[in-house]
């Protein structure tokens, strides 16, 4: 820290990211509430533990190699060059990956990315409840949370990413890099995993499996909305000078930027966050005929659809784009369910995957020709760049690896719990132990009454 201004900027930035991390914790609380609310009583404990234990597993693996991948892979490697030099400072044995008074940003920046990793894994978690083995899910959680999403972030969510340079890929608040990939990944597992017992009738038509507690589901989604504010703020650089950006911007006016270091403002994303939430909620209420689960999910789908361009859209554009994405996601969910017998227990593939995919393509049209980066020589934003990017996120880095790994797991008999256990409930063993303990305590206390 050279001058007082440098010191103030550094400390402000450090605190800014730290606050976003605390906010984003609410996303995980929300996902846990949501999943447990959606599951049936005999599966609660396993459902909760499945989502909770991804926290430590993704955290330690993101420390060991996930963070390094982000800094190492912007060139592919092998597409625009090799491993980036910046990766060396982000290995787990680097001094700046520990207590270090010369670097006050890496820790909080790492943590902000880590919370995105939890979210990616948690999105997948909800769709596979009540029949996946916890051990299989946790391997998938590490793969999506500490490998595949962070590869896509290096490629398309990094100021030097090859997708940004060559395709003009623009995805400021992660329609693709978090949501489309997580939705695609969930679909890749679901195709192999199969539906919950009883989900489809003998004639192949789907049954609704209602949540055991709709209040928990909706409260969970409300918490996800709240945490989403932290997510949005964490996608920005809060204050930076043109000199520090080092691109084409002239003059001395400081600005907030998106992850590509292109100017935007917190005010812009606040407008657009609220208007896209509203567009999603309004359309979801109508299309689902007032179903609370889908109305809340639609608010989320609306934000996710508009997120790719919410640094640049007009608020009314954000609202309308959100409405279109939400309508498509709802319709696609039921069409895919009927046509392909896919049992996505919480609609995660639709809300995150389809809405994210559609949002990327819409951004390509609405932001067509705009600069994707403040640096010279980058492609501008285009529909084809966004379409290729959406396919990479949803298909190449989402669906495909999940499908292959799930096939291997299925072949080894480690993907799905046995039919008997699914019917008696994943918590059967724990519930039996619990009941035995309750019975024993009751009997002992009653004996004392006499």
């Amino acid at each position: 820290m050279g001058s007082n201004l440098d010191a103030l900027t550094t400390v402000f930035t450090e605190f800014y990211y730290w606050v976003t991390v605390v906010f984003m914790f609410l996303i995980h609380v929300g996902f846990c509430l949501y999943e447990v609310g959606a599951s049936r009583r005999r599966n609660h404990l396993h459902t909760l533990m499945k989502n909770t234990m991804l926290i430590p597993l993704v955290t330690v693996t993101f420390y060991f190699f996930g963070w390094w991948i982000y800094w190492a892979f912007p060139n592919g490697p092998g597409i625009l060059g090799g491993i980036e030099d910046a990766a060396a400072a982000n290995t787990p044995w680097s001094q700046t990956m520990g207590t270090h008074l010369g670097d006050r940003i890496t820790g909080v920046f790492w943590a902000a990315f880590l919370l995105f990793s939890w979210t990616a894994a948690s999105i997948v978690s909800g769709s596979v409840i009540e029949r996946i083995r916890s051990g299989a899910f946790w391997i998938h959680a590490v793969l999506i949370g500490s490998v595949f999403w962070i590869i896509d972030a290096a490629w398309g969510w990094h100021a030097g990413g090859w997708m940004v340079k060559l395709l003009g890929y623009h995805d400021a608040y992660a329609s693709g890099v978090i949501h489309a990939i997580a939705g695609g990944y969930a679909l890749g597992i679901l195709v192999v995993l199969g539906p919950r017992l009883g989900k489809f009738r003998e004639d192949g038509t789907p049954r609704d499996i209602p949540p055991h507690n709709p209040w928990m589901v909706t409260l969970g989604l409300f918490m996800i909305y709240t945490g989403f504010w932290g997510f949005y703020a964490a996608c920005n650089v809060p204050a930076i000078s043109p000199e520090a950006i080092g691109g084409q911007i002239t003059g001395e006016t400081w600005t907030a930027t998106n992850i590509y270091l292109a100017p935007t403002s917190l005010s812009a994303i606040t407008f657009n966050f609220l208007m896209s939430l509203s567009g999603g909620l309004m359309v979801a209420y109508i299309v689902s005929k007032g179903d609370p689960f889908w109305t809340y999910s639609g608010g989320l789908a609306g934000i996710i659809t508009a997120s790719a361009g919410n640094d640049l859209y007009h608020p009314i554009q954000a609202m309308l784009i959100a409405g279109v994405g939400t309508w498509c996601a709802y319709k696609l969910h039921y069409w895919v369910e009927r046509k392909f017998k896919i049992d996505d227990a919480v609609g995660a593939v639709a809300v995150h995957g389809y809405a994210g995919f559609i949002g990327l393509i819409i951004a390509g049209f609405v932001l067509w020709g705009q600069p994707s980066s403040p640096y010279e020589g980058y492609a501008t934003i285009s529909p084809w760049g966004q379409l290729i990017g959406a396919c990479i996120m949803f298909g190449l880095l989402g669906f495909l690896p999940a499908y292959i790994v799930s096939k291997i797991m299925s072949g080894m008999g480690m993907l799905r719990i046995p039919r008997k256990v699914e019917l008696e409930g994943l918590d059967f063993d724990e519930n039996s132990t619990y009941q035995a303990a309750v019975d024993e305590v009751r009997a002992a206390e009653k004996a004392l009454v006499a």
Partner: protein
Amino acid sequence: MSTNGMTSWAVDLKDIGAIYPFQGAEVLMVLVGLAFWIGWHVIQLRQENEEVAREMKADAEGDEARDAIDRY
């Protein structure tokens, strides 16, 4: 061609104002937005009327209503 008139960030930010796409079409966007809002009320009221009509036809004896009252 660019939807907000900018094809690069080679600018001084003190000279830049709005950066959203389709500047100049704000009034049209507001009209479309208003239509979206009004349309929502129209569709919602129609759906609610249909729901109320279904509920009026159901439970002619009032048994389910008494159960609902008991459940509080």
